[in-house]
């Protein structure tokens, strides 16, 4: 007899409810495998996102048993509780349908945080050599591998309590740029992350670094922004 998993999946919009499915259990099965099985074999109308399936694109994140996870790299065996999986759309973002959320606010906040590169040179200038061992570059490199999955945003208590808060991902990206010697936007970026909804709202609960699938530490980046913001004002 085939072993099965009991899977509850959120269906509908914000006022939806969980629907139960029985999914064949397999060795080395990921949560994304489970969701894909449901869509292909049980209910083709199930909405969810994925692209690369190898932990690069950041599109498959969702709440798994109440915790935000990148589902393509989360083995069922490591997240299952009492033989059950409960899957919901990412927290702290508006639900579109089923397991998909509207990421507009998330990416708008990246823009509000000036978390984009401000070039200091043109294409006609020589490409500067970036030394990998300077303190600033090391700090940038330690935070730069973000894949925009939104896991930290969904894990953040401050985001849940304060809708203005820019969130760990945007602030982490801003920190990498503050430490990028090629960037020319430090002044407006520090102003952007120091105001209402900025880095000073972070309570350092560290849920972002606990759940970041890339093992980044946005709390540390935000602490760096706090120091840099104060130094810029003095």
């Amino acid at each position, binding site marked *: 007899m085939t072993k099965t998993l009991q899977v509850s999946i959120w269906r509908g919009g914000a006022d939806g409810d969980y629907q139960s499915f029985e999914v064949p259990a397999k060795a080395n099965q990921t949560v994304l495998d489970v969701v894909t099985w449901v869509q292909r074999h049980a209910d083709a109308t199930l909405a969810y996102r994925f692209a690369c399936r190898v932990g690069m694109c950041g599109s498959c994140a969702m709440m798994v048993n109440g915790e935000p996870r990148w589902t393509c790299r989360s083995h069922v065996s490591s997240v299952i509780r009492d033989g059950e999986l409960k899957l919901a759309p990412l927290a702290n973002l508006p639900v579109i349908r089923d397991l998909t959320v509207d990421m507009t606010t998330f990416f708008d906040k990246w823009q509000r945080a000036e978390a984009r590169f401000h070039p200091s040179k043109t294409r006609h200038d020589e490409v500067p050599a970036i030394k990998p061992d300077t303190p600033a570059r090391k700090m940038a490199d330690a935070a730069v591998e973000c894949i925009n999955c939104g896991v930290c945003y969904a894990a953040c208590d*401050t985001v849940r*309590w*304060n809708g203005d808060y820019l969130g760990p991902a945007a602030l982490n990206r801003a920190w990498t740029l503050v430490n990028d010697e090629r960037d020319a936007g430090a002044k407006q970026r520090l102003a952007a992350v*120091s*105001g*209402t909804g*900025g880095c*000073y*709202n972070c309570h350092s609960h560290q849920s972002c670094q606990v759940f970041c699938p890339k093992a980044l530490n946005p709390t540390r980046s935000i602490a760096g922004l*706090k120091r840099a*913001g*104060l130094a810029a*004002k003095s």
Partner: protein
Amino acid sequence: MNARLYYWQRMTAGLMVPLIAVHLVTMIYAIGNGLSAAEILGRTQGSLIWGLFYGGFVVAASVHAAIGVRTVIGEWFGLRGKVQNAFAVIFCVVLLGLGGRAVVAVVM
């Protein structure tokens, strides 16, 4: 919270760390040696140093707590802008009043 409020909350916290340590050690020392309330007041009343010590403590605690409460009411009750700031200012003034009254009673 913005940079200015963050700065003042951290500065007042830093100020309170040694003040709390001195307060606790002094309190334990005084009680441990069996001093009565009258004997303690006899040492603090008229003392400019204790007045400055506890006066500074009250100011630091009032500012620190008001900034924290401002954040809490923003996050828990959704208060924003002028209402949020007014609540924090009133809270600060109330703490200053209560604390100031206690300091006056101890040193005057």
